[in-house]
């Protein structure tokens, strides 16, 4: 673009140091928070009070902190579910579907073994809990792996397939818990049956064991990508599939593997929210809301630039914001969906920061010879 005597261009950045990566993430998040001030303008409260309401509930109120922790675990698993295929250059937007698959499979274990009636536990509860977690992971891996397999074998667009699976599983859950479906609770409110207390997830310091699992996975995933041959292959494939093939990397196995892993992580998120959070222990009637929250995982993984440990603080912040925003919405009588609006704003600032991450503005003076007008008269002679 030309501005008078100067020329403004976009040039690719030659190097991107880690501090710069962190800085763009922080700027994107701060910008989204600043933009979200507009959401609070419609209420009568002062802006600073609105933010205070959000943060003090999410990070200082005992109920709020617990809700933030649970949501962080949920969102962390969703983040990994998006992050692993994304490192291989593939888009897993099937997080809600895989979350539902995990929830359904976890509930299928006590249902099939007829132990949702606490008097007739067929197996020791500890074993059943392990089975529930394993079933959830397997179902999510199957759902995700299906998309990965189609992608690997036939080059079917994974965005479309995972999105179709989201809708399919959304209605399957509706079938299971509504209008006399197999999982419907005895009281029949469009919710699943509740789990007996012996099948509740064991707690550590008041938090389900899934928290430990989520943090361990964060460390393991970063190690996988930084230190192992498999992680290197996934990254190479993500950066340049054609070059990776020449390097001897088998695309079919790799695409399938990342989607199997991704699906299993999303399913663990489903297990966590429907079967391990104290006070829930059932698939609630508004399960669609929890499924769609999984999209926060996409933005968290994108802003963290594919680092699972880097995603942890981002996820905790987002979890707190969405919990606090939901609370503030009731307090300040804002319209529904402040948390979703924040999701949208984050996406917008991310895409903007993405440009600045890859390009820098070049600003140079055009040499004056280049600007001289072309002579209109022929030289004499």
């Amino acid at each position, binding site marked *: 673009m030309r501005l008078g005597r100067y020329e403004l261009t976009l040039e690719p950045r030659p190097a991107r140091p880690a501090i710069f990566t962190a800085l763009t993430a922080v700027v994107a998040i701060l910008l989204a928070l600043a933009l979200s001030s507009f959401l609070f303008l419609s209420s009568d409260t002062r802006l600073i009070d609105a933010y205070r309401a959000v943060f003090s509930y999410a990070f200082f109120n005992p109920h709020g902190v617990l809700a933030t922790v649970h949501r962080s675990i949920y969102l962390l698993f969703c983040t990994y579910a998006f992050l692993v295929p994304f490192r291989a250059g593939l888009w897993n937007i099937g997080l809600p579907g895989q979350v539902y698959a995990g929830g359904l499979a976890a509930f299928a274990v006590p249902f099939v073994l007829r132990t949702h009636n606490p008097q007739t536990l067929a197996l020791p509860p500890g074993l059943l809990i392990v089975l529930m977690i394993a079933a959830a992971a397997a179902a999510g891996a199957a759902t995700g792996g299906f998309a990965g397999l*189609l992608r690997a074998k036939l080059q079917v*667009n994974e965005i479309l397939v995972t999105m179709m*699976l989201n*809708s*399919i599983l959304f209605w399957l859950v509706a079938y299971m818990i509504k209008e006399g479906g197999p999982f419907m609770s005895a009281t029949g409110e469009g919710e699943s049956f509740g789990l007996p207390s012996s099948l509740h997830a064991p707690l550590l310091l008041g938090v389900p064991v899934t928290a430990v699992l989520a943090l361990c996975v964060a460390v393991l995933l970063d190690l996988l990508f930084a230190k192992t041959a498999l992680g290197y292959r996934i990254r190479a494939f993500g950066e340049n599939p054609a070059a990776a093939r020449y390097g001897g990397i088998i695309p079919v196995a790799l695409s399938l593997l990342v989607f199997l892993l991704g699906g299993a992580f999303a399913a663990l998120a489903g297990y966590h929210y429907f079967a391990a959070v104290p006070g829930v222990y059932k698939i609630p009637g508004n399960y669609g809301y929890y499924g769609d929250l999984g999209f926060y995982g996409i933005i968290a993984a994108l802003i963290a630039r594919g680092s699972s440990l880097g995603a942890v603080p981002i996820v905790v912040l987002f979890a707190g914001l969405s919990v606090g925003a939901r609370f503030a919405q009731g307090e300040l009588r804002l319209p529904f969906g*402040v948390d*979703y609006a924040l999701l949208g704003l984050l996406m917008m600032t991310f895409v903007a920061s993405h440009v600045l991450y890859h390009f820098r503005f070049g600003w140079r003076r055009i040499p004056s010879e280049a600007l001289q007008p072309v002579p209109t008269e022929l030289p004499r002679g």
Partner: protein
Amino acid sequence: MWELVARSLEASTIFLFAALGELIDQRSGVLNVGLEGLMLFGGTAAFITAQTTGSHALGFLAGLTLGGLLGLGHGFFSITLRGDQVVSGMGLWILSFGLTTYLGSPYTGPLGLGRIPSLWGLSPFFPLGVALVAITWLLLFRTGLGLAIRSAGENPAAAEASGIPVTSIRFLCVALGGMLAGLSGATYTLSYNPVWNYNFLMGWGFVSLALVFFSMWNPWILLAGASLFGIMWQLSLSPELILPGVLSRYVWRTVPFAITIPILCIISTPWFRTRWGLAKPEALGRPYAKG
């Protein structure tokens, strides 16, 4: 029976408008996977405008305008900045999903205006859709501009060398595509189902995107595909018309989505790709750097 057919055809126009816009986009080489986002924004803008002003026409205008502007936004990112088109498209979709949920929620509920008059029970949008298909086909395959659009999508460098302004052509196409997606969303919220609720589209945009791949980038095949999906969608809403009492109605709701997957697989097989799939624009999704 006629009522069901008319309703199905109305549903198919929503797929058709959005997919036609995406087809024009893709013919010029720009992939917009955030089609559903444009539809959500167009539909919500149309609904809010129509409800506040009491005018359907202004509602449609708002939907078209916002759709076109968002299309241009996608164009700015993917054409001018040469960013990853999937990142921008997905960003657009999540942005729309988040913001329309918030902006639209005070308007949750019915539109409260009279229905748009119909011709013998058939929505006027279906004939409009057929006309648009014919116009698009004529434009793409019988005019110089269409040749320019198609060559920008096949080989932008060669097109540029033969004097076609690739950047302008692509911007024109993303604006047109965005307007059609906005129209599609507006048709949904003002005519097909004039009730606003949370995430009202639930995957219509992604089905439309899949339809473009099925259509082999041909508007007439797109019309057939969209009609088929319209019928299937309407039947999945009222399965009792064909198979009363078989399976839960929720299971039937999965059918249009479930059928999409095997069709996507068939068109992705090597046999299909070599035999029929040559219509795919060669430069689809690839940013073009001049010089």
